[in-house]
């Protein structure tokens, strides 16, 4: 991987969730790059740490979670080490966020237009009224919303419209990276397709990079260039999407792909669960020993150029029929 092409370089990112009895490892030393113009899919099931990773990139992990280490280099600048002011400037103008569940992501007491204007004013200073209106209208048009949406309040929009308003807001400053956290998971399939199309269109238009977080492998198959599969805070496999689907190496990746039902092929249902005791969900580090007992990140080996996977010959990756329960 050549460094110059990378918009984002994440190294050894660690996030812990503090509890009274010690820390839960949410993100266990994750490393990955996002190249210019590409869409990276970050997939995993609930508790895999994919959303936490995304929020950590923006330094938005909220208590009881906290970032305990790593670097997030955006265009060569470490966001985790940046001071508040710099961080605030980089947010949105460089990295924007399309949140999970846009239902509650818009401020209910501000008009949609004002919430978009907010980012423009904050990052670009005062703008003239008419030009500003035109710009917001243009943004809304880009995502297929009529200009009048500008003057509406969030509760007056349907779910799909809200999500599109969030997309319009995310592209307002032409950021080089857009983080989309399950942008369509709350939508009906037909609306999901429309929103997915909008998302890809605006991304292409801006030529920005995108991290698309999701759990739906089918959706990922069509929308991303590369996929990173997360399990229990680790990236266990990462590579070009076609490669991953054609030749999944890690048992967890195989399991994820296999468990997606298809409408074209009826296949037997294989109920299975993976158990990875050493990095299982809710692993607790005992209090006071958080730092010393850090777990080593999972080692990845190169399957083929650009396709990496964790060694899975370890017995702990056996497929079992048990449901993982947290201790």
């Amino acid at each position, binding site marked *: 991987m050549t460094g110059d092409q990378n918009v984002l370089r994440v190294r050894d990112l660690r996030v812990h969730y503090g509890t009274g009895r010690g820390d839960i490892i949410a993100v266990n030393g994750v490393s990955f790059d996002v190249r210019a113009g590409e869409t990276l899919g970050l997939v995993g099931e609930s508790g895999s740490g994919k959303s936490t990773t995304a929020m950590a990139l923006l330094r938005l992990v909220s208590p009881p979670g906290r970032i305990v280490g790593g670097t997030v280099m955006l265009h060569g600048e470490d966001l985790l080490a940046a001071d508040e002011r710099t961080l*605030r400037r980089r947010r949105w103008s460089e990295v924007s966020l399309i949140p999970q569940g846009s239902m509650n992501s818009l401020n209910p*007491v501000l008009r949609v237009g004002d919430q978009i204007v907010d980012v423009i004013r904050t990052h670009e200073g005062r703008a003239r009224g008419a030009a500003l209106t035109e710009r917001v209208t243009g943004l809304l048009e880009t995502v297929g919303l009529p200009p009048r949406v500008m003057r509406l309040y969030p509760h007056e929009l349907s779910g799909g419209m809200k999500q599109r308003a969030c997309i319009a807001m995310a592209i307002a400053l032409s950021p080089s990276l857009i983080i989309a956290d399950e942008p369509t998971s709350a939508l009906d399939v037909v609306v999901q397709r429309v929103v997915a199309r909008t998302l890809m269109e605006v991304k292409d238009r801006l030529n920005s990079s995108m991290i698309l977080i999701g759990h739906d492998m089918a959706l990922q198959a069509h929308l991303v260039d590369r996929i990173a599969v997360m399990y229990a805070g680790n990236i266990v496999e990462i590579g070009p999407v076609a490669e991953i689907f054609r030749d999944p190496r890690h048992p967890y990746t195989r399991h994820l792909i296999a468990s997606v039902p298809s409408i074209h092929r009826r296949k037997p249902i294989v109920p299975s669960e993976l158990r990875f005791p050493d990095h299982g969900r809710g692993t607790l580090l005992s209090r006071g020993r958080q730092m010393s007992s850090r777990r080593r990140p999972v080692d990845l080996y190169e399957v083929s150029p650009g396709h990496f996977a964790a060694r899975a010959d370890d017995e702990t990756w056996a497929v079992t029929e048990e449901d993982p329960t947290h201790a």
Partner: protein
Amino acid sequence: MRGLTWGYVARRLGMYVFTLWLSATIMFFIPRLSGDPVEGMVARITMQSGHVAGGEELIAAWRERFGLDDPLFVQYLTYLRNMLTFDFGYSLANFPTEVNSLIGRAVPWTLGLLTVATVLSFVLGTVIGALLAWRRTPRLLRVLMPLSLTFTAIPFYILGILLIYLFVFTLRLFPVSGGYRSGLTPDAFDPAFVNSVIQHGTLPALSIVVASMGVWALGMRGMMITVEGEDYLTLANAKGLRPGRILFQYQIRNAMLPQVTALVLGLGGLVGGTVLVEYLFGYPGTGALLYQAITNADFTLIQGIVFILILTTVTAVLIIDLVYPLLDPRITYERR
């Protein structure tokens, strides 16, 4: 039309009229429940002060004055008409002074004190509550502020007594009672008079403010913390907005909404407390007048004051409710 809709206004007005009618009706029937209202009242005073001068004549005069010998519904209709036209008749204890003129003199004082104290305590309490929950608040403030909230638990009246003891009796910083120094003529443009009003009003206002501020502060703090967990606040942070903008437009604006509801529900209590504080400080408002009316068994005066107090509160609530949709655009959609 967003914000205020006619349906919402009509519903609120309906509630307003209904509340007034219900309170007026309760006040009409209460005295008549226990038989003869006049005798009950006189009996009470006799109990208290041992003897009422000219008790018999008083009862007879009352009966005539209030048409107590008419059929009940005639009395009721007359009563409603009188209430509607603010015709409360003559004060029984200060005949031939009209109840209206007594109340008229007292109401501006009460309204003034109540408004100043309510606005002050609401604003201060809300700001303190917001600061308590804000991450950037200096540590010192965070430690000191909760202490002041302890006063919340103490009723206005008791706090007023403490203030009198401390500032009037011990430190002699403030005048004992009344609304202004005796000898001055009420004149809003006379600096001496205004100064005196402020001096006399400080302690009563202080006891209301200090005692009620904490309620708003606690409520605000709770709401700020709740809002902090909301997705739109995370997004506001992701947007790189300035902390001040996030605090005011995203966090406080949303946390304020339940505060306003709390204000609506708390106004009745504030009015009640103000009445007691006024009585305690001998303030020339409705509180002192009400106490006087009770000790004098001034039937008409009590009725008049209580009706005006209710009217004031309910009207204030109506105004807040009509403003509310402007703060929260969702409100008029609630009943869909």
